[in-house]
């Protein structure tokens, strides 16, 4: 079609978009590089703003600040419980939505969507209003309740994306071979939708770990990792925060690399789900 145009100009034009994409990715990575770099900064006072020199000190004394360590531990525990509970509840809803037709199905779809379309601050304010009105003390439990609440919808959407492109004839085949419903579910259905469930679980974990706004309204005296950082930002953030964030980032990178490699291996073999 476009092959009539002179070849040189076409090559020049073809470079515009990839170069642009590279620049945007670089722009997105700038703060991350800065964050990692300042985890190695040998700064003298409280403010880790100016590059002074290289040190591994902060890696060696990663858990030097007990409040920060406690906040990180709280966040990890809350994120883990949130992930398990929200993934269980969300997966059950996703299964109902994709494999049954029932009255109220489309209203349920809408109901699941609304929390995602509500600004976080409104989620935080409304939960606080309720806890204040019924005089329920705020703390670890209320943070957990809030995190599970805002994660469920994201899990439903993620798992649904995986279950809807799913070949039902595989289940029919299992049943033709004499498997009962329970066996069919655990030996055929569940392994096939497991990647979707894992993705939903990871998303719930990340959403919970990252949350500042909803938590700020409902935490009481419980301090999470983002809450601690926000409080410290006025007095200077210690480099240990940079180191912790760097390590979390690298875990994310490792996860991405592993899943890419697995995908490559899977695409080499024919995929039974057709996804």
């Amino acid at each position, binding site marked *: 079609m476009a092959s009539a145009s002179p070849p040189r100009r076409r090559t020049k034009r073809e470079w515009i978009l990839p170069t642009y994409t590279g620049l945007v*990715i670089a722009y997105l990575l700038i*703060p991350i590089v800065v964050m990692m770099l300042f985890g190695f900064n040998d700064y003298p006072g409280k403010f880790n703003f100016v590059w002074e020199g290289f040190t591994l000190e902060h890696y060696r004394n990663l858990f030097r600040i007990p409040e920060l360590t406690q906040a990180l531990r709280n966040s990890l525990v809350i994120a883990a419980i949130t992930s398990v509970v929200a993934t269980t509840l969300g997966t*059950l809803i996703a299964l*109902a939505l994709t494999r049954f037709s029932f009255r109220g199905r489309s209203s349920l779809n809408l109901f699941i969507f609304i929390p995602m*379309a509500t600004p976080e601050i409104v989620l935080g304010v409304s939960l606080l209003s309720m806890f204040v*009105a019924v005089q329920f003390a705020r703390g670890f439990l209320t943070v957990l309740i809030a995190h599970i609440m805002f994660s469920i919808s994201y899990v439903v959407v993620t798992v649904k994306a995986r279950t809807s492109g799913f070949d039902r004839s595989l289940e029919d085949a299992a049943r033709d071979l004499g498997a*009962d419903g329970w066996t069919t579910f655990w030996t055929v259905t569940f392994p096939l939708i497991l990647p979707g469930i894992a993705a939903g679980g990871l998303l719930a974990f*990340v959403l919970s770990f990252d949350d500042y706004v909803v938590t700020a309204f409902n935490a009481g005296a419980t301090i999470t990792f983002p809450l601690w950082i926000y409080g410290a930002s006025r007095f200077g953030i210690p480099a240990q925060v940079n180191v912790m964030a760097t390590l979390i980032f690298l875990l994310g990178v490792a996860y991405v690399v592993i899943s890419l490699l697995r995908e490559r291996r899977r695409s080499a073999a024919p995929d039974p789900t057709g996804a």
Partner: protein
Amino acid sequence: MALEAQGRSAPEPPEPPSDRAGGARKGRRGLAPYLLTLPGVAWLVAFFAAPLGFMFLFTFYDGTIDIGYSFTSDWPQTYVEAFTTYDTQIIRSVIYALIVTVATLLISFPMMYWIAMKGGRRKNLFVLLLLLPFFTPFLIRTLAWQLVLSDQGIFLGTLKDIGLLSADFKLLASPLAVISGMTYNFLPFMALPLYVALEKLDPSLLDAAADLYSSKREAFLKVTLPLTLPGVFAGSLLTFIPSIGDFIDAEILGNPNTTMIGSIIRRQLLVNQDYPTGAALSFLLIAGILVAVFLYARALGTEELTG
């Protein structure tokens, strides 16, 4: 409590087990989806829908947490006062959120177009590279931006040292810093729905347009753009809604003249403990969003909310 709920939901059979008797099967099928959705929906009703009701109720009340709250017949005044006192911050939030939505759209569309159309086998790699920065918590990303934009930081400081910028040039504590930080933080909310829409686009449609003698520009305007509108719609909502309620960027990167409505709501509740005003502002925020979504859906002619 959380674990209890999970334990209760686990033993339910997620699949109707037998297909022996037609009648029994129908009965099971009728009940199964409701049993499956029950625990999750109950959670959302108790901790999402009910709290919204409590928040709304608070706007009919008067008082503070110390003297207690009582119903006031003068409740419309709460809304009027909340709006007139903070109209500057409300309008500012709307404007910032609109700018951020347009900026993320303009930045991500060409990039996602290229990845979806020309990315080939490396498509997923590019998308993941794009998402990589977002493995770092929101707050830390924003604080890193603060470091990048700071007056004597590694970027502006260097540019000043080599004489490319005047020594009194400032970026931090300005509307530009706030908007650039928000654009950075909300970019994936626009980029991902766009990618999903562009990826679905069948390239043979563009070939067909070319075969019918359309120019590349025409093909883009008449084929690519209309077919990716659902993605633009979803991306705009997913960017606009969190942007309008965001206050972290404004507090970390801005100055007192960039305060957004989120900061006000937070201060009313957590500092002044003025629940009626905070609740009224929150309610105005969601009411405004609903109107905006409705108008936008009509303007774009798409009702596809959930993608």
